[in-house]
């Protein structure tokens, strides 16, 4: 019986990968003018970086959400719902605000990204690990405080932009309200390197994820150095969210949708499967959504609208069906 379940999961992976590839190909080739080579190369130049960014975002949000859910042992919470991406926006604004838009930190986008990341890593791990410890991993408290934190970070950030020099604000704005139509392509290579390094640095902890989902007591019983491991994983989650937010801005519900779809489909505890599944779902949802935005609504509606509406409904569905929240 176990082998049947395994074979089923392999089949599901094949179907999912196939769908993701179709989405990628459709996105690259739809409405292309093959006769005019200059138009062709122009379209490719626009589409290719976007595609890469969407894949990077799928990996970082998909991975971060699954890891985060397993760490706090609950499947309706995602890092974005706890305000990690508003924290990132706040940090980014604060850096420009205090350093000035003409300073080297703000003008060099890779440097500014690196600076944001370091700040984010320190601040977020401090805040969130304190939060989990203080509430003793009580999910309802964590969610409640997370919602409050989201508004807090957002209000501080808006306050900063209000008292900012208008010129500074103008330069900040383009990097702040990133969306899939206004992506931050300069940091693609930096992000890829960072993701690879993260996966490498956390390979031991990632292998422990399966055991961690059994709960703290069981994990320690089975020989996991729990506190250190959790701290490292949280750090990884923070950095992944920072990467995604820096590239395309906050998309809160995406992680919730793709992580839970993956969990629902694969019904397994194996995190290699779950993370891969959630990444593939991310690619399908994002690229599919982007095709609709570009070719059906011709850019009149940003993709975040679909994700928020769809994600909100899905969130309610999860809350109502999941008895043991």
């Amino acid at each position, binding site marked *: 019986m176990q082998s049947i379940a395994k074979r089923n999961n392999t089949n599901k992976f094949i179907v999912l990968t196939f769908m993701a590839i179709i989405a990628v190909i459709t996105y690259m080739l739809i409405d292309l003018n093959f006769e005019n080579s200059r138009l062709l190369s122009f379209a490719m130049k626009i589409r290719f970086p976007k595609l890469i960014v969407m894949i990077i975002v799928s990996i970082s949000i998909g991975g971060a959400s699954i890891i985060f859910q397993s760490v706090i042992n*609950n499947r309706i919470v995602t890092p974005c719902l706890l305000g990690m991406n508003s924290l990132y926006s706040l940090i980014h604004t604060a850096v420009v605000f205090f350093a000035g838009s003409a300073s080297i930190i703000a003008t060099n986008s890779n440097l500014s990204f690196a600076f944001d990341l370091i700040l984010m890593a320190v601040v977020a791990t401090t805040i969130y690990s304190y939060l989990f410890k203080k509430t003793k991993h009580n999910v309802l408290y964590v969610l409640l405080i997370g919602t409050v934190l989201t508004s807090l970070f957002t209000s501080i950030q808006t306050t900063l932009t209000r008292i900012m020099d208008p010129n500074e604000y103008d330069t900040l704005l383009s990097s702040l309200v990133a969306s899939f139509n206004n992506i931050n392509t300069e940091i693609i290579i930096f992000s890829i390197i960072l993701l690879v390094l993260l996966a490498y640095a956390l390979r031991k902890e990632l292998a422990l994820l*399966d055991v961690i*989902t059994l709960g703290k*007591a069981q994990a320690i019983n*089975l*020989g996991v150095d729990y506190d250190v491991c959790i701290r490292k994983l949280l750090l990884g989650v923070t950095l992944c969210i920072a990467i995604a937010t820096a590239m395309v801005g906050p998309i809160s519900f995406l992680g919730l949708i793709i992580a839970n779809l993956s969990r629902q489909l694969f019904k397994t*505890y194996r995190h290699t499967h779950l993370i891969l599944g959630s990444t593939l779902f991310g690619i399908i949802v994002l690229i599919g959504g982007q095709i609709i935005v570009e070719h059906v609504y011709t850019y009149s509606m940003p993709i975040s609208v679909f994700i928020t509406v769809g994600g909100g409904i899905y969130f309610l569905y999860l809350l109502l069906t999941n008895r043991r929240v």
Partner: protein
Amino acid sequence: MIIEKLSKHYDGKKVLNSVSFEIPKKSVISMIGPNGAGKSTVLNIISRLMAQDEGVVNFEGKNIKKYKSNELSKRLAILTQTNNVQMKLTVRELVSFGRFPYSGNRLTEEDKKMVDKAISYMELNDFEDRFIDELSGGQRQRAYIAMVIAQNTEYVMLDEPTNNLDIYHATNMMKIVRKLCDELGKTVILVLHEINYAAFYSDYICAMKNGQIAKFGTVKEVINKETLSEIYNVDFEILEIQGKPLSIYY
């Protein structure tokens, strides 16, 4: 395992006050006492789930804190009361986790044999492919015990293993505890609320009150009218059935 002068505070309140005792090997030791006496706290400290404020737990001639967590997980297993898994996990997969300290995520042939043995030992063959969250309380408890058996440790610690079980399943659980000691040669330390289970199935009893050891000794030494009345502040009568003391409280 020798426990020396353990103390623990919660928010300035002392929950353990200089607790010392020695755990005899290859026997069943039950910890009894009223709520808040510190039984679970002791169990959590000697299984490294919790850190003590003062005192030393000496495990096989070495301070337990000096061991690597992975090394300890091959010698000492703990099962707490709250075991709710959010994952979709089958019984076999759960039991396989017992081999994690030895082989990580990749099970060897030998690990698989150990898992098979643990599953049939706990008579779980019929539901080895069922999901944990679809099982009844008694079955789930047995699945967790099977995992502990697969972990193959000398010491097994159980925090209220009969909690939430009806008398049929609770009695079965206690028989299993006895078998763990008699057949598999393990040292079993458990926290119990039912005094009669403790009296009937244990070799030694550690009675606690107000964060201190009230009495540690063999069943006959602890289960008597005076000691129990003093610990629980309730009147006791002790009868004898099958050569074991049976306590009646009213």
